[in-house]
């Protein structure tokens, strides 16, 4: 069982509420969800839509076909009608009632009761059409409008009216609530991961599609007792959090590509001062302003090579919403263990899509801060002491009695003082480089491998394409021996698995949301392994499994 619902309308028409009510309801009836958003860069008008996919099994990504089209305006029918599957249904307020169109006069129903709640009618009709009861939806309504009690009754009435106006055309069952699941979007997942990791300071400048992280954490400031500060610009944001980290707090910032560009010098500062910091880059197409509300994976090489000269840094790309929670938690650990900046490469697709995931298991999560013990410090504390693994004892100002902590953007000696001589420079560059080597040796995650043991084709992807590639792989597995390598850690590059797999003669197909297949270029640069094919996409829309399937057929086989 796999069903796709598309909810379309203008910005400002309240699509989000419809989506939220429906997905919560589905979820409580025990369905797995995947709900993604296609937004224009505007506040009102235009055409936006959300795709809600539900199933009784785990779902990995969106699907372009439509089983049920909820058209909040006429344009939605015009634009999406062709994508409605053969036995698909349209719920619409306009046009004629046809075989595949359930017409409801939502506006007049709402007029008497509450015109602002017109959308709730659609929710009711949709539930009826799908064959689900209305009871859970009523509870969801109550929770959703808990702040505005006055409108709950109106909404309940309209829900019922919509329900009654529909007719049952599908046959969904109540599968029973599952307590061990969560539905979460990628931005909240990063925020949640940070909260669990004990972030005490988040400073950022608003930028789509990263603002959700800021919103999530801002909403939690009071209960967690942390501070979220809107900076005057991204340069301030990165420098603020570096100050926070230097002062001993776990600190983080988030932005999108343009903001990351402004932070570049600051990332280098984190590198040379060895100040831990976590930076989320929620990618959108660029360069410059580009397509502000769309998705892409165009920042990979920029992030890996960010800032002048060289320094150890880690770049990782969560594969889905669940991974985003754990990887963000891990990012803080790695940042502090190695005293380096860690960039989390998310993107609009991951950030704005909600997915049903297994409930996060907190037992697996341990926080370690890696500060130096007072009794291990010699007479004069050396912030940049040369050590075998390159990791120096870290302390924050005020931590060690009678000691000061000095950190410097210039090349420096063990105490943190400016130096100019070549020997000391060499020692410090080597000290920093050792950290990256240790990270490579000890803490890198090799990509997940799925599919055939002796594949003819291996799809290689990184970050949030993992789900859509998995779908395509499954679709192709009847005809071909296919496998998948899903990278999460991308820099430093985990080389072992891909080397092994490449040796066995399978053809490598890189699937990426950028124009030049950047990950393929990175893999080649580090390992010499060459992509046999690249399936790339840069129109700002996410891959679906179906599209990868089709493009494989067109471009590869």
């Amino acid at each position, binding site marked *: 069982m796999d069903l796709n619902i598309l909810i379309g309308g203008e910005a400002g028409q309240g699509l989000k509420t419809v989506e939220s009510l429906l997905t919560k309801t589905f979820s409580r009836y025990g369905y797995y969800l995947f709900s993604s958003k296609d937004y224009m860069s505007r506040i009102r008008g235009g055409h936006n839509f959300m795709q809600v996919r539900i199933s009784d099994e785990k779902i990995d990504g969106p699907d372009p076909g439509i089983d049920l089209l909820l058209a909040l305006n006429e344009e939605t029918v015009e634009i999406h009608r062709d994508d409605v599957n053969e036995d698909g249904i349209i719920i619409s307020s306009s046009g004629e009632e046809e075989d595949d169109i359930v017409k409801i006069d939502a506006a007049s129903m709402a007029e008497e009761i509450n015109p602002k709640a017109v959308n709730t009618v659609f929710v009711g009709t949709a539930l009826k059409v799908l064959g689900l009861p209305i009871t859970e939806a009523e509870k969801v309504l109550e929770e959703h409008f808990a702040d505005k009690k006055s409108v709950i009754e109106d909404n309940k009435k309209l829900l019922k009216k919509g329900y009654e106006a529909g007719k049952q055309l599908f046959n969904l069952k109540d599968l029973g609530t599952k307590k061990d699941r969560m539905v979460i979007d990628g931005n909240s997942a990063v925020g949640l991961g940070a909260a669990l990791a004990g972030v*005490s300071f988040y400073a950022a400048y608003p930028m789509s599609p990263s603002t959700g992280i800021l919103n999530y954490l801002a909403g939690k400031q009071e209960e967690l007792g942390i*501070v979220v500060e809107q900076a005057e610009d991204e340069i301030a944001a990165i420098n603020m959090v*570096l*100050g926070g980290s230097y*002062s001993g707090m776990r600190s983080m910032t988030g932005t999108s590509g343009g903001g990351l560009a402004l932070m570049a010098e600051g990332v280098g500062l984190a590198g040379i001062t060895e100040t831990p910091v976590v930076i989320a880059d929620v990618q959108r197409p660029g360069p410059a302003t580009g397509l502000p509300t769309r998705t892409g994976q165009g920042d990979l090489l920029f992030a890996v090579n960010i800032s002048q000269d060289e320094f150890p840094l880690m770049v990782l790309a969560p594969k889905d919403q669940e991974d985003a929670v754990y990887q963000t938690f891990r990012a803080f650990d790695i940042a502090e263990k190695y005293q380096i900046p860690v960039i989390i490469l998310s993107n609009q697709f991951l950030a704005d899509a909600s997915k049903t995931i297994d409930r996060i298991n907190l037992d697996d999560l341990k926080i370690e801060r890696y500060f130096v013990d007072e009794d291990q410090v010699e007479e004069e504390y050396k912030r940049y002491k040369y050590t075998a693994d390159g990791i120096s004892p870290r302390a924050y100002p005020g931590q060690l009695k009678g000691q000061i902590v*000095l950190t410097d*953007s210039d090349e420096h000696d063990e105490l943190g003082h400016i130096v100019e001589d070549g020997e000391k420079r060499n020692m410090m560059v080597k000290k920093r480089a050792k950290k990256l080597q240790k990270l490579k040796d000890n803490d890198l995650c090799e990509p997940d491998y799925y599919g055939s043991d002796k594949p003819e084709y291996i799809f290689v992807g990184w970050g949030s394409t993992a789900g859509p590639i998995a779908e395509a792989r499954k679709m192709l597995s009847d005809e071909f021996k296919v496998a998948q390598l899903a990278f999460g850690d991308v820099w430093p590059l985990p080389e072992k698995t891909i080397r092994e797999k490449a040796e066995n003669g399978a053809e490598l197909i890189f699937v990426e949301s950028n124009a030049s297949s950047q990950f393929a270029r990175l893999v080649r640069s580090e390992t010499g392994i060459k992509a046999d094919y690249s399936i790339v996409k840069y129109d700002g829309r996410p891959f679906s499994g179906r599209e990868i399937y089709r493009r494989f057929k067109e471009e590869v086989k």
Partner: protein
Amino acid sequence: MAELKNFEADRETAWCPGCGNFPLRTALSEALTEMDLNPEQITMFTGIGQAAKMPHYIKVNGFNGLHGRSLPPAVGMKLANPEMTVIVESGDGCSYGEGGNHILHNIRRNLDIIHLVHDNQIYGLTKGQASPTTGYDIKTDVQTHGINAEPFNPVRFAVGMKASFVARSFVGDREHLKEMIKAARQHRGYALIDIFQPCVSFNKVNTYQWYKERVYKLKDHDPSDYEAAVRLADEFGDKIPIGIIYKEEKPTFRDRIPFLGDRALVNRKVEVQDMEYLLDEFK
């Protein structure tokens, strides 16, 4: 007991002989000693420039960051540790040029910090280009016919922004400078001191002599009188007032975060397993 020698950094400076940075350092060390502070109770945030090298030449906690970015990292410290005495220190180019947006918005934040600007009216470290405060009568290798923009008056700007503490001082008057630093620390909130600091290598106009002939100490001025402050801030010619130009008590950055109280976030205890409730919202 604090002692002056506690602040002595055992290092040769990279400053030129005769530079105004030396008396500034002396005044600062003495003020810190007289306020009975110890090195570990102080953190200095600086940018890049000759002035910004200060944390290498005075022994306190130091974050010598990027050019223009001396202010933002101080925000983090004030959240982590409100007890820390925070000094932001840098040159006029660093503070008012590259860092202009940060001073603009940190005046609004009103962190409880001391901001010392070594105002030598020139870019020292990069060898003598105009800074925002460079006057009309200076020509440089870049400003071959003089400056293309009106000189920036930091005091008038800060008063216009109603910064909570605005003062001007001069390294040629050590007692005055010490007094200003002490007053700045006593003040709750952002305290800017624009300090005339002659650059003997690159600024041949604004010399010790030049300043000495012009500066006069404020008497009987009520710093809470905004309009009087505006008038004084505009005096930058044959006579230039030094002292506290404007002062207003108002909520600090931390005060405006209602749930923060006097907590030092660096001491925040986090138990992952206690955060189960965060997951429930996503049921």
